[in-house]
């Protein structure tokens, strides 16, 4: 079996499962946010279900439209807060403590290797980087899980992606996943599991693994997963509030498709409007002028992302007329960036530093685009109107390309700025 099949079998109380099987699985962690959970709460109330199955395993994160962007959002955040209090939910964070859910949960040790994680947010697949099965669902699915602690899942076929060769100076997990989506397309892994393996992945830091699994859904996948190893053990040590269970794929595990790429010489990758699979090497896009650069999100708002950005922006300034927005993903990350002097670097460069929120990634608030404007973002989607006006455009890249481009005002290879 693959690692995905093993985790599903274990949670379904079965010796084994095969792709295509339906499994009724026990859920370790159920996640909702200020946009998706209010509908789930309404569904629970309509069904007359008064208490959640396990208050320590229902996780509620007000991260999308917080700090409240308007009265309607404030009302939704209040629905979440009132429910969390009434149910005495253990894992609820108020503004000031809250971060972007897919960065916050691994950081705080709420999720770990071997877990089965169901979240009413499509980027729940991020946590597969820990060697867990994590997948996004909608609000009614979340309501059912909150009621019963169980979920029906069809066991996905697995695709294996093997990365070999030398990872270049500016090549991050974001470049690897953009490359992958560019190769297979936005429905290239539809309903499937994406398993990332090979020597490049084995030496890849956890932040980059999280970026990769985060965008598995942009290829249509059910989940992304990395086999837990020493990097995983180091990451969860001192964080995880439960025992980790480590799974790995059997040598004879079956894959519906296997792809292998030697990434030596790969250029930083940029996804052009209006789909994440519309990828090009950064050097082909030097003519694209930018109105806004966004560095942050559940994809790339972690400490190492800010470190790369600070390294490039130190002693430099943001291009005239360009707005550079930096969104640390959690308060712990923001605090650490403060201690290390990076927030001062950003402010000296003329960038603005925001509190942790999903904010502009989904065109929510704090950086919405006007008609005709062009942004480069380290986020995960560049659909029509994703970041604001339907006639605005979004390009996607790594933090290194985003920071370099903020300096020049157009899409730029980091080498051009750093030398």
């Amino acid at each position, binding site marked *: 079996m693959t690692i995905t099949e093993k985790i599903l079998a274990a949670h379904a109380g079965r010796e084994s499962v095969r792709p295509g099987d339906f499994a009724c699985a026990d859920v370790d962690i159920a996640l909702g946010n200020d946009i998706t959970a209010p509908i789930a709460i309404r*569904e629970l109330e309509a069904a007359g279900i008064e208490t959640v199955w396990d208050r320590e395993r229902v996780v509620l994160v007000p991260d999308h439209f917080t700090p409240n962007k308007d009265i309607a959002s404030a009302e939704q955040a209040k629905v979440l807060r009132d429910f969390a209090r009434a149910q005495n939910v253990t894992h609820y964070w108020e503004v000031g403590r809250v971060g972007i859910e897919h960065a916050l949960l691994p950081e705080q040790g709420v999720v770990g290797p071997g877990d089965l994680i169901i979240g009413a947010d499509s980027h729940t697949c991020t946590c597969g980087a820990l060697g867990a099965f994590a997948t996004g669902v909608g609000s*009614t699915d979340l309501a059912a899980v909150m009621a019963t602690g169980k979920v029906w899942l069809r066991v996905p076929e697995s695709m294996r992606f093997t990365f070999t060769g030398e990872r270049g100076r500016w090549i991050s997990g974001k470049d690897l996943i953009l490359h992958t989506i560019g190769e297979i397309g936005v429905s290239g892994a539809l309903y499937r599991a994406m398993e990332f393996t090979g020597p490049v992945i084995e030496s890849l830091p956890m932040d980059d693994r999280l970026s990769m699994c985060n965008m598995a859904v942009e290829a249509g996948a059910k989940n992304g997963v990395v086999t837990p190893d020493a990097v995983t053990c180091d990451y969860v040590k001192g964080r995880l509030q439960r025992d980790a269970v480590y799974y790995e794929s059997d040598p004879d595990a079956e894959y519906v498709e296997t792809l292998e790429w030697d990434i030596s010489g790969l250029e930083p990758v940029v996804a052009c409007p209006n789909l994440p699979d519309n990828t090009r090497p950064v050097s082909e896009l030097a003519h694209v002028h930018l109105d806004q650069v966004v560095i942050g999100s559940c994809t790339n708002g972690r400490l190492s992302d800010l470190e790369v950005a600070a390294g490039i922006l130190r002693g430099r300034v943001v291009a005239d007329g360009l707005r550079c927005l930096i969104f640390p993903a959690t308060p712990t990350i923001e605090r650490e960036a403060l201690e290390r002097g990076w927030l001062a670097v950003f402010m000296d460069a003329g960038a603005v530093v925001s509190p942790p929120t999903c904010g502009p990634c989904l065109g929510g608030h704090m950086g919405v685009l006007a008609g005709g404007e062009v942004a480069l973002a380290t986020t995960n989607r560049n659909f029509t109107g994703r970041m604001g006006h339907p006639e605005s455009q979004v390009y996607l890249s790594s933090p290194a390309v985003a920071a370099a481009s903020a300096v020049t005002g157009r899409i730029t290879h980091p080498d051009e700025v750093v030398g």
Partner: protein
Amino acid sequence: MKGKAHVFGDDVNTDEIIPARYLNRIDPEFLAAHCMEDADPEFVARAAPGDVLVAGENFGCGSSREHAPIAIKAAGISCVIARSFARIFFRNAINIALPIVACPEAVEDIRPGDQVEVDPAKGELKNLTTGNAFTFAPFTKEIQDIIAAGGLMAFVKSRMGG
């Protein structure tokens, strides 16, 4: 169910079905008023109750927002017919009992404004304008049980009570 076809392309995403600027509300009528707004601003004005929405590959890709199928259902669309569906949208539609049909051959045949008749239970679809008829595979038993119960929460409740 029978209605006029509104035709869209591949990879219609949830940001187009219901843009995030409207996710600060959950009432179905409000969401319906902005359904498909960023793909076709005139859609809501043209759509009549019972009409069908037709699309290509990977319909509903992107976010997990259940606001998307809720908006489509509340806009009066009786059925979504596509070549394929993104997985979270597929689950969400089943869970709220919005009929969806994967039938690439029918998508190939249907043009904007065609009259289409669908019987999901029988797995039959007719383009009344061209006269062509199509069949599609019925859902698996697991999914049919959810639909028969009237949606996921009703299904869950019946099992919790039992």
